[in-house]
């Protein structure tokens, strides 16, 4: 996912969403939304529950940010994609992939990574990114 330039307490309050890919599920209409909101964005119901969606998804589309602004300059190129997990679309940074390796439709999986650092307070913001699914390649007994 992408992380806003939040204060330390604000980031802390959202840590489960950032660390574990927690989505909101509406008990009335049954639809998922991410990140969790106070009310269902589809039917307005406030009867919601939080569920973890640590599943693999497909990369629907992506963009490559070469001219990253400010403190993000050192992270360029930054790749941001739209990942579809069971119909839920998540905007997220991609990692462990180079621009020339990008292809829509590839399988991706969530991993915890450093997103950025608060340059004033020094807190490190960790959050879920997506990377190409690790395909077993080793041919070993067992």
């Amino acid at each position, binding site marked *: 996912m992408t992380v806003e330039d939040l204060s330390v307490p604000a980031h802390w309050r959202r840590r489960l969403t950032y660390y574990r890919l927690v989505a909101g599920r509406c008990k009335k209409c049954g639809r998922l939304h991410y990140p969790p909101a106070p009310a269902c964005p589809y039917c307005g119901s406030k009867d919601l529950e939080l569920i973890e969606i640590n599943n693999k998804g497909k990369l629907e589309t992506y963009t490559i940010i070469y001219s990253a602004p400010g*403190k993000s300059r050192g992270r360029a190129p930054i790749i941001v994609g739209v990942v579809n997990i069971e119909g839920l679309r998540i905007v997220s940074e991609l990692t462990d992939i180079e621009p020339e390796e990008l292809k829509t439709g590839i399988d991706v999986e969530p991993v915890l*990574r450093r997103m950025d650092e608060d340059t004033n307070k020094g807190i490190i913001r*960790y959050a879920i990114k997506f990377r190409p699914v690790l395909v*077993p390649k*080793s041919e070993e007994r*067992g």
Partner: protein
Amino acid sequence: MQDILRPESKVGIHGWGTYVPRYRLPMNEILRMWGWPPGQEKGLGMKEKAVAGLDEDSVTMGWEAALNAIKRAKVNPGKIGAVFFGTESKPYAVKPSATIIAEALGITPETMASDLEFACRAASEGLRSTIGLVASNMIEYGLVIGSDTAQSSPGDVLEFTASSGAVAYIIGSRKGSVAYFEGSYTYVTDTPDFWRRALAPYPKHGEGFTGEPAYFHHIEMSVKGLLEELGLRPSDFDYAVFHQPNGKFPLRVATRLGFPKEKVLPGLVTPEIGNTYNASALLGLARVLDTARPGERVLVAPFGSGAGSDAYSVVVTDVIEERKNLAPKFNDYLLRKKTIDYALYAKYRRLYISYY
């Protein structure tokens, strides 16, 4: 030996997990950059080393290794009563890394959680502590993580080996484990072979002093102590895994202790990924478990500068067969690699100073 001092046999490994970052720096890039003589890396038995990406650190690598260990153990994270994180490259000087990982994996809040420091041996100290906690029924499961993005001053000989990687184990009762402990033995002294002062970016080391009085003496003493206590000989083991500061020391200490090369090579990972510090020997054990057969016995001897070594005897059980494929294996990470040059290595290791 009284039973109260030999609780290991009640305890076993329920899950193991590894992580190696994607990027590899070939040794010839270091030779080229710093003008080392051709073949310098061969004396260390090195081919290439793993490099953490720009968005990785010991926490993120430890998280993935722990996730893999939990998958194999098939344990509810809420039942994990202790998280010990061994590292010498923690992202914060003050603020536990263990709590970040515990929170991200759903282990919090009813758990112990600490970062441990003993150079490359901290995770092993966590392992021995966890064995005691499980054997005493104080906790049901414990999570032990060894993870490092090892520091080395650019141009220092240490740069050939200092690398990145992580390993994790879920420890529980012997019943249902993939491998149980027969015994463990620790040997420590005050030996200044390698150190890093507060606020210093890179460690100092005692060159040749790191060998005989440090690495070899401590590992030999811990292994001999274990063998004597258990009444075992090198020939009783199918594998021997030692701390791996380079590709040569483990083979040399094995020879001195009477273990043939063939028993060491399956768990020798440093030539291909470098010295992962707190992962190192425990990562070698994980690679052995990836392919081990029920009934096989493994000797594991981590080492940490400062200095100390632990030796463990581990016996594989029938359960291991059903757990091997529940998470990626070490070789899956090993084969997923992208070669980089020194310039990109310097960026990923944050060696450039930028002002934005």
